[in-house]
Every structure is written in structure tokens, then in C-alpha cells.
């Protein structure tokens, strides 16, 4: 059964916004992790 066109637009828009959000959270997490570490990896306490 084919969805109504607006439903497709709605799904497409929703998917794209989610993807932008996911892309942003990747950038945020990895950027803050790398930049925020102060880059001095030596001091990172090693769990055991």
C-alpha cells in the first residue's frame, strides 16, 4: 500500500532531520572528546 505523498515528505523530512541531529551529536561527542581531553593522553588514568 503506498503512503500518501505528504506522509512520504513527512518521513523524508523526519529522517533527514534525525540524520542531521545524529551527525551533529557525532561531531559534538568526538570533537569534545578530542579537543576537551587537552590532548595529553598520558595522564588518562587506566581502568583495570
Amino acid at each position, binding site marked *: 500500500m503506498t503512503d500518501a505523498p505528504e506522509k512520504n515528505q513527512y518521513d523524508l523530512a523526519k529522517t533527514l532531520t534525525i540524520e542531521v541531529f545524529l551527525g551533529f551529536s*557525532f561531531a559534538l561527542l568526538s570533537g569534545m572528546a*578530542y579537543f576537551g581531553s587537552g590532548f595529553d593522553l598520558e595522564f588518562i*588514568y*587506566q*581502568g583495570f
Partner: protein
Amino acid sequence: MKFSLEYSSTAFFLDLLALSLLLLPIYLVASGTRTRQVTLTLSGLYLLLFIAPRLALLSLFFWLLVFAMQRLIANLENKAQEKPDISSLVLFVFIAAVLGTLTPMLWWKTQEWEFVKLINLSGNSALSLFSRTLWEIDLARNIIMPVGLSFATFRAVDLLVKTYIGKFRAMSLREVFYYGFFPPVLVVGPIIEYEEIKEGASGKLPAPKSDDFLAGALRTAWGFFKVLFLASLLQPSAQILDTFNTQSVSTIWIYLFVYTWFFYINFSGYSDIAIGIARLYGFKLKENFNNPFFARNIIEFWSSWHMSLYRFARRNVFVPLGGYRENRHLYALAGTMMTIALWHALSASMVTFGIYHTIGLILHRQFTKWKDRNNISLDHPAAQLACLLFTYLFVMLSFPLIVLPLGTALEFYGSMFGM
């Protein structure tokens, strides 16, 4: 002359992530189970090369021995089916194999500097027999502590136990090395079981699909964020461990509270990275943490903190010691708790830590019985919160024992209570 042997697991995971960018396309295309197992084994070995080539060589040697022992026990176990009279021999061989596997770890935990000297010198000298270039590169790498030895040891023991109880037949070298060098868990665990990375019923290893990549990548990024950003923010709390004798009581309590969160976020962050990267390859490893600081009782805490170690201790110590028998339950509890404690370090403070939590488990058992007898219910939210806070407090108080020698830890407790 001592060496600062602190090692950055972050560097290892960054290497694994970088290598995965190259490896995943190959992994997707070469989809045979054998090829995938060999690819993962070689990449695990390759990553150890960058910690130090001698570590890769020593790990190969360790897992070669495990392969030989596993095969021996499996064959003996087979023969014992027809001729049960050799079962005591099988038991003897099994125990000898387990003790042999535990020896390097126990030696390291008791004679750290001698063991570190031994593995670095012998590992490097052995390398010179194989390849001059690798030997020369090895000379310039750092002096290492046996990275991941405690994890590898318990993974190996788990394999031998399962072989002894007849769960695993004789395994090929490829399978044992695949289990031994599975990259994500090499350095800080989790202590996985072979079943978690075994090929499925179809004989195929799980192939990563889009949602595996997405979930794996997100989980890895989240892990790096926890370790490199969140934990590093809370790291100053560690100062209290060497300045407590001159600080106010409130500062000590606050810093210890923050330190437990630093410790948890840092350690669970590494597990997130390991589980996340394994997920990129399609493996769904069992969780290693489950909000341990929200546990409502001590048994719930221990089944949600470093869960892979807890599961290991339950199936390989608690059950054999008669955990499911009324009269032997207490011994099993104590044995399990001491295994968890002493795996971290063979020290007076960890023995105390083990006793402390064994008592906690026993008191919880009595309390539960008393509660059920008088059918008191703790389901009211306020009661649940009280249980949570009390459990957290009980655990927090044991943290100094993990990181300080016993004498210093006792001083720490003294200043905590203003003595």
C-alpha cells in the same frame, strides 16, 4: 630503579578505531568465518605491536600454551567418557593447567618489578631470534607492564573450565588465537566468553549491518566522550588520595564522592568503547556496567559493576563452590567476592576489600531473610531511595581500599571521620 609504567588505553582504542576504518571494508567483503577470524586475530596482534613488539610475541606464546592445554583437556575429557577411571587424572591435569595459566598474573601481582623486568628482557631477547628489525624497533618502544594480562588470564581460564565440563571440544589454533586476540577486549576487557564471539548456528560470524555500524559508532563516540572529557573533568578529585591528611572532613567526603564517579565514568567509558567497536564488526557483547551506583542492594551492585568479571566469578567460582547449595552458599559468596577483589591486586587492602564486601553480601542475605519473614516491603519509593543511597554509601566507603595501600587507606578513613 623503578619505571613509570602507566599506560594509556586511549591510545590503543584510537589505534583500533583507525585500523577499523581500513579493516571494516575488507571484513565486509571477505565474509568467510575463517577469514574473518584470521583478520581479527592479525589485527589484534598488529595493535599489540605498537604497544611493544615483545608484548605481541609474549601474548602469542601465552595463547599457544592455552591452545595446547585446551586440546589436552578436551582429548582427556573425551577418553574419560569411555573410561571413567581416568577422570581423577583429568581433574588433576585441569587444575594444573588452570594454575599454570594463573601463574603469570599471580607472579605479576606479587612481584611486580621482577616480573616486569623478566617479560621485557626475555620478550625483547626472544624477538631478536625472529626478526632483527622488529627487535630494533622493540628497543625503542617503552618498557611495558603486561597490558591486558589479567583479562587474558581470566578469558583463558574460562576456556579451560568450559572444556573440562565438556562444553567445548578440542579447538583449532585459529579459534583459540581468535579468542585470544579479539581486538576490542585486549586491553581493558570486558572479560568475554568464547560464546559471545563464536560463529552462529549457521556457522557464520555475525555480519555488521547498517544499524550495527550506527549503534557501534555512537556507543564508541559516547565512550570516548566519557573517558576523554567527562572523566578528565573529574580527575582532579584524585588529589585527595595523597593530600587527605591535611584537608577538612567535608572536602574529603566530597572529593571521594566525585572520585567514585570519575572511576566509574572512566572505566565504564572504556567498556563502552570496547563494546561499541565490537558492535561495528557486528558483535553484540554482553554489557559490562548497568548503572551500578543506582543499585538498591549490594548483590545488585555487584551484578551491575564490571559485570563480565562478576559473571566469570559466578560461573567459575560461585557455582563450583556450591553456591546453589544451602549449606555451602556462604563459602561460595566469600570465594566469589575474594576472586573479584584479588583479581584487581594481591594486596592487604584488596583482601580487606574482599572481606568488607563479603560481609556486606552476608548481611544483605540475613536482612533479606528477616525482611521476608516479617514480610516487610521496601517497594515504597522512599524506601527504594534509602536502599540506593545506603548501598552507594557502602560501596563508596570501600573505594580507598582499591587505590591505596592498607595503611594509607586506614589513615584515609581516620581523616574521613575527623580522627
